[in-house]
C-alpha cells in the first residue's frame, strides 16, 4: 500500500517537529550549561579573588602567576574595590564577580583589561601585595 500525499505531509511535519525539538533541547541545554556548568567567568573571577586573598597571607617574597589562554573566549576583567569582575564572551556573554579580602597595590600594569583572548594576573608579595594584569 503506497503512501498518500497526506501521509507524506505528515512525515515531513513530524520530521520537522522532531528536529526542532532536538535543536531547541540542545540550545536550551547549552545555555543551561553556560549558566550553571561551564561558566568561565565565575571560575576565573573566583580563582583570581582567591589568589589575591592568599597572597596577603604569604610571609615570604613570592610571585604568583595565574594564566588563562583559553582560545575562543574573550575576557574583559576589572579588579577594584575588593571585587574581581570577569565578563567572558564565547557563544554567550556571562559576567561574574567575586570578592577578595585585601586590596592589592597596582604597579607596572593596570587593574583592567579589555577584549583579551589570553591574560595573566601576576601577584608579587614583597612584602606588600602588588598585582598587575597582563594581556
Amino acid at each position: 500500500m503506497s503512501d498518500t500525499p497526506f501521509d507524506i505531509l505528515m512525515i515531513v511535519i513530524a520530521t520537522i517537529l522532531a528536529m526542532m525539538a532536538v535543536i531547541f533541547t540542545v540550545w536550551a541545554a547549552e545555555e543551561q550549561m553556560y549558566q550553571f556548568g561551564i561558566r568561565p567567568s565565575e571560575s576565573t573571577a573566583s580563582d583570581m579573588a582567591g589568589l589575591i586573598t592568599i597572597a596577603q597571607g604569604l610571609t615570604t617574597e613570592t610571585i604568583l602567576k595565574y594564566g588563562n589562554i583559553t582560545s575562543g573566549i574573550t575576557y574583559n576583567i576589572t579588579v577594584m574595590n575588593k571585587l574581581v569582575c570577569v565578563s567572558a564572551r564565547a557563544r554567550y556573554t556571562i559576567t561574574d564577580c567575586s570578592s577578595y579580602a585585601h586590596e592589592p597595590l597596582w604597579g607596572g600594569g593596570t587593574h583592567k583589561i579589555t577584549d583579551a583572548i589570553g591574560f595573566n594576573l601576576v601577584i608579587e608579595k614583597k612584602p606588600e601585595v602588588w598585582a598587575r594584569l597582563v594581556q
Partner: protein
Amino acid sequence: MTRVILSLILILIFGFAFLTGMGLGVMDKYLDLRVTSYTIDSSRHAINLMHLFLTNSLLLENSPNEIQKLVLSSGRIGEYNSGWFTDQEDILGYRMKLSDCCELLEYDYNFSTSVRTESGSWSKTAEFGNLVFDMESMCYMDYQRMKGYAEMPIVVWSKGNNGNIYTPAIANLTLMKTPLSELAFWISQSSLRLNEKYDQSLIKEIRFGPEVEKIRIYKATPARGIICMFKRNSLHDKICKQFYNSSAEVKMSISDSSGSWDISTFTQASPFEKFLPNNCNNITVDADINRVPQIMLRFS
C-alpha cells in the same frame, strides 16, 4: 501502517517533552544547582580567608622580629569582635582594620577557636564575626542557607600569672551569604559592572527575614557607603558592612512607597533609616544604564 508509526513518533516526541518538563520541574524544586555551586565556592573562599587569618593577620601574636604562624592571640580575637558591631569608623580603629584586612563583600562569617577540655569535648574559647541572622527562616531560598567551612589546628596564646600560655586549639571559619553581604556585594558589583559597561541592566532581588527590624544606609565617602541591619527586638544589635560606588557617574537612589531619594544626601549624622514589617521582606537592586548609569534600591 504509516499513520500508526507517525502517531507513535508524535506520541513519543510529546511524551518525551512532557516527561522532560516534569523532570525539570521536580529538579527545580528539589535540586537547586546553585546550592552545589555556592557551597564549593564558599568553601574555597573559607580556606583562602582562613589561610590569611592564620599566617599574616592582626590576630597573630607576633614577636618583634618574627611572625609566628598559626599562633593567635586570644585578646586580639576579642578586640576584633567589638569591631564588627559598630559603624563608627574611628572607634579604636577596629572597623577600618577589619575592612582593610579581612572583609569579604560576598560573605559574612564567624571565626572561632575551640580547645579540648579535660573531658575530651571541644569548648569554644573565643570568636568574632557577623553571622547573626537566622537563615533558617522560610523567607530564604535553599541556596541562601548553604555554608562554607574551613578548620585548622592552631595554638592560642594568652598571658598567665606565670608567663605565656600556649594552648593547642582548633580554628573554625564559617562563611555564609547573608542579606547584608548580598546587598553590599550586589550594590558594589552593579556599580562596577555598569561603570565598565559589562551590562546594560542588572536586577537582583535580595530577601531577608523578619529578624531584620531596621535598615540604615548612608554614604561615608563619595566612593563608599555603609549599610547597617538591626536585629528585631534588639535594636542595639546591628551589623554593618561597606559597599562601593565605582564611579561618580553611577547614581545611587533608594525608593519605597513614600518616595525616592539620592543616597549621597544621607550621611552618618543623617542616614536613611527604614523600619520593616515583621515578615519576609525584599530589596531589589535595579541597575540600568539606559539614560544615566543608575542603581535603584527598591523596598517592597
